[in-house]
């Protein structure tokens, strides 16, 4: 996977089938009804009973609407995934105006994968990967892929920039530019 900056936003290329599958899971994870995911994405804000009931009644529905709207936006951008050239690797454009929504959605997806696979902090430590089950290891790799995309959007990496999406050639799809 590589990333670059174009006038319209951030472009991610060289996306393998597994990367694309991981990305397509993001909106589903954001809208997951699994109790473990809901407990993490929609936690209680305070300990007292009355406050907690108010929170569930007022804040949670608003947050659910926000997450659903983010999921829709991510789905729309993913629908724009395109192939350049003959290979199966694909390009994704995240428009500048969608960056904040993507950052939050990627974070939600990473937290949801963590919760759904019963991962613990110890799994993320140096020797943790080897102690995880195969299913957990796969989840950890997906969490890492999504973290790399988050880091790009956060500006943690220096990216090549310039030009527009229309300037990209078939060779850009699978090779590092």
């Amino acid at each position, binding site marked *: 996977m590589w990333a670059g900056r174009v006038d319209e936003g951030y472009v991610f290329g060289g996306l393998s089938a597994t990367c694309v599958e991981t990305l397509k899971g993001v909106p589903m994870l954001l809208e997951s009804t699994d109790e473990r995911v809901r407990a993490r*994405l929609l*936690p209680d*804000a305070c300990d007292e009973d009355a406050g907690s009931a108010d929170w569930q009644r007022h*804040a949670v529905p608003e947050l659910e609407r926000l997450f659903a709207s983010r999921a829709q936006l991510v789905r729309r951008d993913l629908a724009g995934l395109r192939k350049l050239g003959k290979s199966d690797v694909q390009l994704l454009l995240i428009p500048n105006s969608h960056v*904040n929504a993507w*950052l939050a959605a990627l974070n939600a997806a990473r937290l949801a994968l963590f919760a759904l696979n019963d991962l613990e*902090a110890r799994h993320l430590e140096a020797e943790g990967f080897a102690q995880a089950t195969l299913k957990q290891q796969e989840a950890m790799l997906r*969490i890492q892929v999504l973290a790399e995309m988050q880091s790009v959007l956060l500006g943690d990496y220096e990216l090549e920039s310039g030009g527009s999406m229309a300037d990209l050639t078939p060779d850009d799809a699978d090779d590092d530019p």
Partner: protein
Amino acid sequence: MFVFAATKEATETKTAPKTSLAPPWNVIVHDDPVTLMTYVTKVFRQVFGYAQEHAHRLMMEVHTNGRSIVWTGAREQAEMYVQKLQAFHLLSSLEVVDG
């Protein structure tokens, strides 16, 4: 004149305890092993308008101590901030300031 004085007195007796019954609330952010540190800093800047250095210091406090008080004030506003932090998926909660 007499009525006015009585009303004023009654108002004062009613409002004084109300003020003392509204303690400030803390907005707490808790550490989680998944969320990226630079993301936490960005969210603090975006939600509270904190400068980069202050946001970074609070993020480091969350990371090293497991939690940080990121804002203190009236309950209604504290609830609004917690909702905003949860909108970005930061593990956050409210607690009343002791004493």
